[in-house]
């Protein structure tokens, strides 16, 4: 959360400009798809040098104490550019460690800046624990120096070094070749960097993660729409641009509406999260549901609207589609998300009774 005084607030739009410049310069969005060397590591190093990891961390730990507002445009621009890094993994972990409020957790935050720790959050479903866990596809695991492990049901949490005894990480190949994923197996892990109370860290970890995915999806969906319309303007059939066919125009308009509606909720949920205002957890989840749905629908339709070339590896619609579908399901399917918040949503009905 914020501790920066108003005078020290960074303008989110300045962050957007900085992000745009860096990403335009460094992202080769087809690298993973063409087997070119992974540019993610270099990009992450640049982000570190620009001080991005410090942005929302408290000043006492050497951070800049900025509210979430400064991250939102970065996540959005990363989604637009299909950036090959999981910045949000470490960023969400920093927020969660801050929420834990212990001295150990504070030291871990400082270690992110000073020792280059990269943290991958790991939410263990019920039945799994530090003693025994296995997760097949975790964002940002290749390259992570630490894991922030939280039991969804049991209430235990811990920060664990990737090299600790009992931790086995392996890079996994997925359909989303634009970002790196790894499998994690935990077996009788006892050597932990610090212990955490899941009740304190889990909500923040989750909400930050949902909002990061939501922003990535908003950025990606808008970019996918722009590229799709551009293609439709250039492609001629029956003696006219396919963008002039009303059936197709109306589909594009519907995507635009879905994206803008979702964006409005993501903006609001981010504002509320930044100050941990009323319903911040529920709103973050609802924002992700809408944003991911808009992205998935847009990217699915993009392939169809491109026609034959949309079916090729060479053209780009599938980059968006694969990313969109992972965004939609990682850490919880849309229905799991709905089930998670349904009770809280319905409880608001009680508050409406006056």
């Amino acid at each position, binding site marked *: 959360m914020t501790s920066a005084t108003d005078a020290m607030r960074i303008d989110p739009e300045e962050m957007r400009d900085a992000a745009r410049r860096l990403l335009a310069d460094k992202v080769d969005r087809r690298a993973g798809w063409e087997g070119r060397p992974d540019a993610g590591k270099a990009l992450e190093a640049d982000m570190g040098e620009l001080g991005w990891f410090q942005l929302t961390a408290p000043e006492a730990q050497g951070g800049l104490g900025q509210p979430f507002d400064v991250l939102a445009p970065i996540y959005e621009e990363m989604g637009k550019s299909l950036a090959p890094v999981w910045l949000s993994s470490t960023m969400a972990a920093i927020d969660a460690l801050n929420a834990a409020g212990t001295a150990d957790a504070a030291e871990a935050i400082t270690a992110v800046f000073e020792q280059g720790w990269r943290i991958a959050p790991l939410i263990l479903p019920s039945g799994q624990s530090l003693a025994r866990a296995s997760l097949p596809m975790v964002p940002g695991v290749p390259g992570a120096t630490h894991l922030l492990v939280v039991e969804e049901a049991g209430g235990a949490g811990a920060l664990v070094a990737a090299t600790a005894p009992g931790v086995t990480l392996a890079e996994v190949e997925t359909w989303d070749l634009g970002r790196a994923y790894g499998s994690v197996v935990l077996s009788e892990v006892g050597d932990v960097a610090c212990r955490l109370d899941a009740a304190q860290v889990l909500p923040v970890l989750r909400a930050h993660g949902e909002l990061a995915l939501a922003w990535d999806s908003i950025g990606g969906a808008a970019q996918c729409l722009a590229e799709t319309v551009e293609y439709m*303007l250039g492609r001629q059939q029956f003696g006219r641009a396919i963008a*002039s066919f*009303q059936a197709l125009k109306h589909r594009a308009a519907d995507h635009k509406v879905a994206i803008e*509606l*979702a964006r409005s909720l993501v903006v*609001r949920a981010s504002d509320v999260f930044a100050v941990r205002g009323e319903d911040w957890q529920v709103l973050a989840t*609802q924002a992700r*549901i809408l944003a991911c749905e808009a992205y998935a629908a847009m990217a699915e339709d993009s392939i169809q609207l491109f026609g034959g070339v949309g079916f090729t590896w060479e053209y780009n619609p599938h980059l968006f589609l694969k990313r969109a579908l992972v965004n939609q399901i990682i850490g919880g399917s849309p229905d799991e998300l*709905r089930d998670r918040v349904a009770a809280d949503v319905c409880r608001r009905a009680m508050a409406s009774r006056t």
Partner: protein
Amino acid sequence: MSEQDAIACLRIEIREWLAQNLPGNWRERQRGDDVAGFLAMQREWFGKLVEAGYATPHWPSEWPGGGRSLAEQIALFEELARGGAPRMSLFFVSLYHAAMTLVECGTDAQRARHLPAILKGEVWCQGFSEPGAGSDLAALRTRAERKGDRYIVSGQKIWSTLGHFADQCLLLVRTDSSGPKQAGITFLLMDMKSKGIDVRPIRQVTGDEEFAEIFLDEVEIPVENLVGKENEGWKVAQVTLSSERGLTLVELTERMALSLWRLVLAATGGTGDTAALDVSVARTVVDISARIEAMRAMLATLMENRIAGREAVGDASILKLAYSRLSRDFTALGLRLQGFAAMRDTGYVLGAGYETGNWMFDFLNSYQYNIAGGSNEIQRNIISERVLNMPREK
């Protein structure tokens, strides 16, 4: 006092006023099968709002109740919606379309004549659409010919909301057919008691009679009732059509938010406990509530941009389309939850937003947002052409 504090005070003031003045029995008095009761209740409620200065926040400050900022107007609509007040159905066209058209384009004499009358309850309707001119409004053919100091008007208008209750009509007529279709249109004010007018209510899909056909047979309209210049009525009509400036959606969205909670309470036996709901219903509630929150946020941004004068082309179309689709899905949820009971015609309340008491009625009624005021398809044309810059329809 800061603007924010002023708004907070206004909200408290309105809530207190509502506690004192909202007739507890208005729903019983606006039953769909009792038109006289509906009219009486609407007049009584309108009179109270006028007296309190709450009916005309959007009017210029020299008029009673006028001079409120857009932010205050939004607060007022939100509070009336949240407080469970009836909508100002009977006077909406008068207060917004008629009054704002006169404020922006009318003569001093027209304003002096009609604005005070509106405050006393003059009812207006809008006579734009014709059987042959709906989405393509500029194709309208109702003819007006000037003879001395009068126009002689013949033709047919249709879908005029409240036409059969109206004292006055905002009328679009053709005065020139020689040039482009937008160029020969003229905007007139028509007294509904004039000779040659025949108004026939049209029964709607809900069974309700809310709009009407207006047949015009050599109706005489004095030239002083011309708004703007002859053949320049299209411009005036645009003012009329944008006169409510999104406030209707603010009000309707607030009412929908409240109705969702009422629906959930009804479906959970008043507990709000999801255990009482089918899983797929609970999931739909999550989605609908997300879209309502998103609508609220999007409306707030639009209103902020309007206040700051930086509204973008197509913003209003994006909002309208988002809202109209939500209204279909929301009422479909109501239909699903009310189940078989919704298939019985149990009567309904007029002017109640989404709380008519019968979800089949609400479900049917929601089509109006998807058709009137620029159908969904027309909004999609606008969004694709003006926002996404795709080629125009010929």
